């Protein structure tokens, strides 16, 4: 089978998964919660019952024959449309990006859920990407060292690190970092790192007034660079250290383990013995013969890693008051802002599925032996 066929098939499959995911999430939220909850995000508080009813019809939860909103709220007189109709309306709204008004506290009721979500999303993206980078930078060498020194001190050490990271409650690790670096360790009486938010507006080591930047991308680090505001950039860097570290340390276990076991397997291959028998330096053996074969399979867990990071960022964002979608998700859960959660789940789904797709294709392309 040719590459493009393979890609095509994977894309179709991706679309299917997303569709199924939408059905799942729709059923969970709309099927199991009363239709009034589903309606809430679309209703502007000022509306009269008549207005509400017309909206309920427009959103597709109330039948056109429904006499009054109170009947609708009491789920009587055949006011509620069948679930599949609701789904079609819902899907239409999802596709045109109409997610109604946000219910999040602290935000004007006239803000749309969509704009709120994607206003915050860049911060989460920034956090996750930085964390992912850190994870790779730490995990891969760790895995290699522990494989090349199997059952020796470095191996034990790196296993403890990765297993430890894997076993530490993320919220606790974050809290301890705060305790240590913000409360107890002080530089010249100053807090070492900012406790909150993506910007260093309150961090002691930060430039007192970093000024403002133009939101090209919404991602502070990038925007700061694009608008050449170096103080702002450093503030953002300083601000992201602790959260990203927390996320990375607690996520690297998976990757380290994969790299380690791959590496150990590869090092047991005959061609490694051959390479040694040729009198090559151990470094040459490891890096030019073993590494590539060991890293390649490790790429395949990237998808898993992304899933883990997105999940983890919810907790980390809460601990560090990171203004991303993760911390907002919890608030959304508190105020029953179903649409926000739905949006989050779907976006996360898209990201993960696409990542997996890219990884698979990349893998297929990279390894000369793979014949899909």
């Amino acid at each position, binding site marked *: 089978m040719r590459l493009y066929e393979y890609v095509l098939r994977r894309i179709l499959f991706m679309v299917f998964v997303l569709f199924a995911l939408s059905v799942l999430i729709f059923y969970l939220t709309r099927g199991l919660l009363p239709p009034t909850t589903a309606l809430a995000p679309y209703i502007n508080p000022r509306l009269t019952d008549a207005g509400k009813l017309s909206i309920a019809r427009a959103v597709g939860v109330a039948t056109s024959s429904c006499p009054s909103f109170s009947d609708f709220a009491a789920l009587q007189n055949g006011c509620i449309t069948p679930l599949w109709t609701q789904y079609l309306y819902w899907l239409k709204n999802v596709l045109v990006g109409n997610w109604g008004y946000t219910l999040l506290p602290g935000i004007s009721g006239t803000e749309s859920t969509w704009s709120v979500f994607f206003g915050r999303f860049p911060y989460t993206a920034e956090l996750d990407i930085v964390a992912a980078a850190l994870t790779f930078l730490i995990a891969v060498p760790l895995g290699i060292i522990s494989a090349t020194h199997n059952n020796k001190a470095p191996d034990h050490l790196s296993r403890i690190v990765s297993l430890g990271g894997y076993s530490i409650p993320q919220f606790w690790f974050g809290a301890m970092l705060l305790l240590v670096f913000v409360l107890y360790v002080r530089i010249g009486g100053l807090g070492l790192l900012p406790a909150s938010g993506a910007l260093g507006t309150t961090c002691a080591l930060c430039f007192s007034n970093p000024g403002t930047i133009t939101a090209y991308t919404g991602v502070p680090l990038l925007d700061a660079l694009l608008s050449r505001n170096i103080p702002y950039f450093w503030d953002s860097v300083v601000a992201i250290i602790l959260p990203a570290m927390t996320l990375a340390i607690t996520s690297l276990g998976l990757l380290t383990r994969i790299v380690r076991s791959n590496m150990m397997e590869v090092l047991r291959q005959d061609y490694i013995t051959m*390479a040694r028998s040729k009198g*090559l330096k151990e470094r040459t053996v490891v890096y030019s013969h073993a590494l590539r074969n060991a890293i390649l399979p490790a790429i395949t867990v990237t998808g898993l890693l992304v899933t883990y990071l997105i999940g983890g960022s919810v907790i980390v964002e809460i601990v560090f008051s990171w203004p991303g979608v993760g911390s907002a998700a919890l608030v959304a859960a508190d105020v029953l802002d179903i649409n926000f959660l739905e949006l989050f789940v779907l976006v996360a789904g898209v990201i993960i599925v696409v990542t997996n797709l890219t990884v698979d294709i990349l893998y297929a392309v990279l390894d000369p032996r793979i014949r899909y």
Partner: protein
Amino acid sequence: MSQAHTQEGGDDILSIQELKLKFHTYAGEVSALDGIKLSIKKGELLGLVGESGCGKSVTALAIAGLLPPNAEVTGGDVVLDGKNVLALKPEEMRLARLKDIAMIFQDPMTYLNPVLTIGSQMAEITRAEPKLFVSTLVNYRLRQIDKQVEGTNPNPGLPAERERLRHALESQSLGRKELNELTRSYAISLLRSVRLPEPEKVFEMYPFELSGGMRQRVMIAMAMMRRPKLLLADEITTALDVTVQAQILHLLKDLRSEINTSVLLITHDLAIVAEVCDRVAVMYAGNIVEIAEVHELFRNPLHPYSKGLLASVPRADLTRTPDSIEGSVPDLLSPPSGCRFHPRCPKAFEVCPSRKPSMIEVAPDHYVSCFLYGGLNGKNNNT
């Protein structure tokens, strides 16, 4: 004529004394080598035969210092060309492998890195320690140049190059670029000399694009590249079909005489031994039970095991059907006491289980370790 050669060539390139070796496994300690004694003369082709699992390959690995981490040498020395290999520091051992000891392995499929081209896997040898290869490469090139200069209408640039190379020879150093170029042409010439078609193409190919026989040739070429003092050939023909086997073996022989290296040919196939070897050592359960010159051994094998081994070989003239030895190779976790062969030995008697026989020279250059031929009187001193 090779006999004459071995007789007069007195000095050993390799001599193994009382080599004892254990494997530590979760199941317990496996005593893989139980004090083996072996020597190879310069330019000699020694066969090492025995059933699989009797410690042939381990011996080779021990010589090349490629033992797995859970192996431990508990006694004896391996002296290669005057220096004790076992005492070498890792770095020295590496250099020894790079220059003096080359090894060719059983399975050409798995012993080449699938994701690197043949070329790069050959080139990395010279790149590992350029100094060691300068003279080889340069001399090779000089010879080429000489030929061309003598030949009709030589390339005018040649004399200049010759000068440059001579300087390089003195300073023992080459530019990176030049090193690579020379390596390439040299490697290709080697590939040609192991009779690979279109060596330039092969140089660029990935292993999985080559057949088994071709890969084995590539491995031999790699070995030749280093002009080693000792070549360890571990079951190199097992994975190949018969016709290819023959070619490879002849290649080995030619190579041996060409660069005058000594070869330890490990195999379980007596036919091969008979075909190419000068001397042969029979191994059983971590012991060398009999060493003799090939024809001698085939004419009158002494050790009961050797007898059995020979008997099990199918003959061309089907005067009698091959009969196999009773029982199977012992589990070396708990090796039999005394002579390790006694449980399977048809001629075993009361001494065998209790004491370990020593090597006795029963005929010139014919050693055997079996109580049937004496060694009963006096303590077990492994002379």
